[in-house]
């Protein structure tokens, strides 16, 4: 199923030289292109990104240098029927995540039923006891979700991880499309591609629907950690596109139970906050007393219904790696049906049988810390030396419940433009999902991240990853 020796190429692995069906028209277009000119356009696109300021800050960079994420101009194409399948699976998964969050912050049926061990909830750092017994409007916890999906074959899609806290990257999805439209209008005339540009409007609508029902025309704002945050461009982009204020924690004040900002004409209330700051920096009174970033009293105002926060504090437990291993069970428990999208098989090292298997096959597996992210504290078995394997094995045995293991996947590839012409590189996909009391909506496509280094499986922008425009074709 997922042997690492065969890599599936989404463009080229078709029945004949014309490539796979969704890419045929693009392939014939590519045949007519002058690659020197394409490379020049590629440089122009990156120059445009810089001038528009689609940049991110690199933490720890002394010069405060801003960088752009490399943009590859060969699009990634998803057929209509492939997308329908993905979309159904994503909606099911996100619905289950919200049901799960509602349950663990209320009656905890799933623990009582013995599906998930209680310790996994209560000892989890992302679990927020302050949220117990509180019901956000419409029972929505994750208003914005990013579901990372990888592909290994024509019909094999897996969810790599869920991002239920503050997923980012949606501005790249939109800007990549805008750039492609400008550079290659003829491709949009010859393909019927589903639009992504109305995402900010959908986000606004979704947030407004999620406000407390007793507020008419809620004042919505985006909350950012500030201009030095790596995703600041995205925060300002979304605020701009939605036509709402972009705030920092110090702009907000809780006065007489209401959340207000100090304006040039006095004060104004804030009813809905799309927060792009982590839980622990929201409110020093409730979460992190050392934080200088938050707004004292914000959480109490939230619990009393004076303001709506998206996503809900404590939603992060749903994307914890230890919880991830239980996602198939979670989906079945709340949805009463089998998961439509597969999880990557995951061995929970807390279970003795699993631990034994993992220790025996360490050289073939990827082992991750359950609370880790960004690739830290991870072992990639096939790339590790004997000594590294031995050292990791000791760490693993010392604290098995801190780890999960997964097989190494042969991620699908899509060609990118290089100096030597087209070359296949590994990709993943992050579709963006909006949830409101009125329903779940997935923007067709998402952000395709691509590992620009040959053979690399790491798509993170901090480690040499780039992005592509992602097309979902009309049926």
């Amino acid at each position, binding site marked *: 199923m997922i042997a690492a020796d065969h890599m599936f190429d989404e463009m080229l692995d078709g029945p004949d030289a014309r490539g796979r069906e969704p890419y045929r028209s693009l392939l014939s277009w590519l045949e007519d292109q002058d690659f020197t000119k394409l490379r020049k356009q590629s440089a122009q696109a990156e120059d445009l990104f*810089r*001038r*528009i*300021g689609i940049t991110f800050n690199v933490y720890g960079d002394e010069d405060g240098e801003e960088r752009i994420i490399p943009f590859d101009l060969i699009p990634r194409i998803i057929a209509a029927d492939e997308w329908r399948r993905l979309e159904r699976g994503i909606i099911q998964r996100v619905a289950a995540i919200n049901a799960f969050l509602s349950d663990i912050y209320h009656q905890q049926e799933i623990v009582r039923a013995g599906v998930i061990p209680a310790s996994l909830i209560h000892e989890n750092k992302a679990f927020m006891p302050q949220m117990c017994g509180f019901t956000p409007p419409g029972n929505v916890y994750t208003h914005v979700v990013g579901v990372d999906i990888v592909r290994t074959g024509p019909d094999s899609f897996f969810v790599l991880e869920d991002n239920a806290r503050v997923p980012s990257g949606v501005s790249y999805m939109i800007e990549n499309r805008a750039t492609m439209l400008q550079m290659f209008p003829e491709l949009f005339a010859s393909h019927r591609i589903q639009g992504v540009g109305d995402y900010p409007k959908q986000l606004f609508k979704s947030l407004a629907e999620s406000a407390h029902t007793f507020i008419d025309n809620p004042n919505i704002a985006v909350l950012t950690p*500030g*201009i030095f945050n790596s995703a*600041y461009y995205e925060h*300002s*982009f979304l*605020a*701009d596109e939605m036509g709402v*204020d*972009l*705030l*920092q924690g*110090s*702009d907000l004040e809780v006065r007489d139970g209401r959340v207000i*900002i*100090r*304006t*040039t*004409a*006095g004060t104004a209330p804030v009813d809905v906050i799309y927060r792009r700051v982590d839980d622990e920096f929201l409110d020093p009174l409730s979460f992190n007393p050392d934080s200088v970033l938050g707004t004292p009293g914000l959480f109490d105002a939230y619990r009393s219904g004076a303001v709506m926060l998206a996503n809900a504090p404590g939603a992060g437990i749903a994307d914890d790696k230890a919880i991830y291993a239980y996602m198939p069970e979670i989906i079945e428990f709340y949805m009463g049906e089998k998961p439509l999208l597969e999880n990557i098989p995951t061995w929970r090292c807390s279970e003795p049988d699993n631990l034994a298997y993992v220790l025996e096959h360490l050289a073939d597996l990827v082992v991750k810390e359950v609370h880790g992210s960004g690739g830290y504290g991870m072992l990639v078995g096939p790339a590790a030396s004997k000594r590294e394997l031995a050292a990791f094995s000791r760490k693993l045995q010392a604290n098995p419940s801190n780890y999960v293991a997964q097989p190494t996947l042969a991620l699908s590839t899509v060609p990118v433009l290089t100096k030597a012409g087209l070359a296949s590189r590994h990709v993943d996909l992050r579709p963006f999902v909006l949830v409101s009391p009125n329903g779940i909506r997935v923007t067709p496509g998402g952000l395709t991240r691509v590992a620009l280094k040959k053979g690399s499986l790491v798509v993170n922008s901090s480690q040499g990853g780039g992005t592509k425009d992602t097309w979902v074709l009309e049926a």
Partner: protein
Amino acid sequence: MLGRHADSLFWMARYLERSENLARQIQAAFYHSLTRKGDDVDEWASIIRRTGMADSFDAKHDTMSMANALNFLLRDKTNDDSVISLLAKSRQNARSVRNALTQEVWQSLNESWMTGSEALKRPVNIRDLPALLENIIKASSVFRGALYGTMLHNDIFNFLRLGTFIERADNTARIVGSKYHRLLPTAAASLGGSDQSQWEVMLRALAAWRSYNWLNKGHLDPTAVATFLIFDNRMPRSLSFCYGEICANLQDLEAAYGTSYACGDSARAIAQQLDNGREADIYRLGFRDFVSSFMADSNQLTLAISADFNLGP
């Protein structure tokens, strides 16, 4: 609008205006130094003194020279008021209120910063200096054009314009104040009419050389220069012109917010004093005192604007 955002808009415009003004002063001093014999460093020293950078310059350089002055004024990142720092601060403020700006306004600032920091990476070759200064000045023009052509003329616009004109008035007052002795009626006698370059450098630094000549048929006279720079309502860098704009923008804000402000009253009082000065003969009122009390009142006005509109981080 969020008070912090208004503050960023105000300072974004101020810093950009300041970089333009500094570039114009360097332009004038450079021209002056090329058209005179010997190594005259007075003009460089004068710029550094009146912009309040003397201590910081002395801490870094033992001698005053054109090379040291250019380096310090244009590209020294540790100097908060160098052109490169001003462009960076202006852009930083713009970035923090990006969604209050149109794409064109933002891009004009971002691009000036990009080209400016590229051009100022290495010490400036004298041969490249004229083009470089022109580019910095042009950045300001493009910004103004984008501002007028693409932004809503609302409170956002008003705060930007306030920043521009408060900075511009301050700059003109500093130049006039630092050379007040050249503008006294006695100056004509003491200079013997032979060295008029001091008036020229002053007018050039305020983009007013040609317009002054045009209005005065080329006749240079200290009282005419002073009256022109301080009171002429047609001259976009005169104190009276700037205060006309400041009052108009504050009045727009008062209308938009439906209330009057103490800062509005202060601005109108300053404008009134300028009118009085024009009518009553500034020399009788005491030229130097007039300019220095103007600067003090202008500083107070900035604080009042800040307090009335909740500016400040």
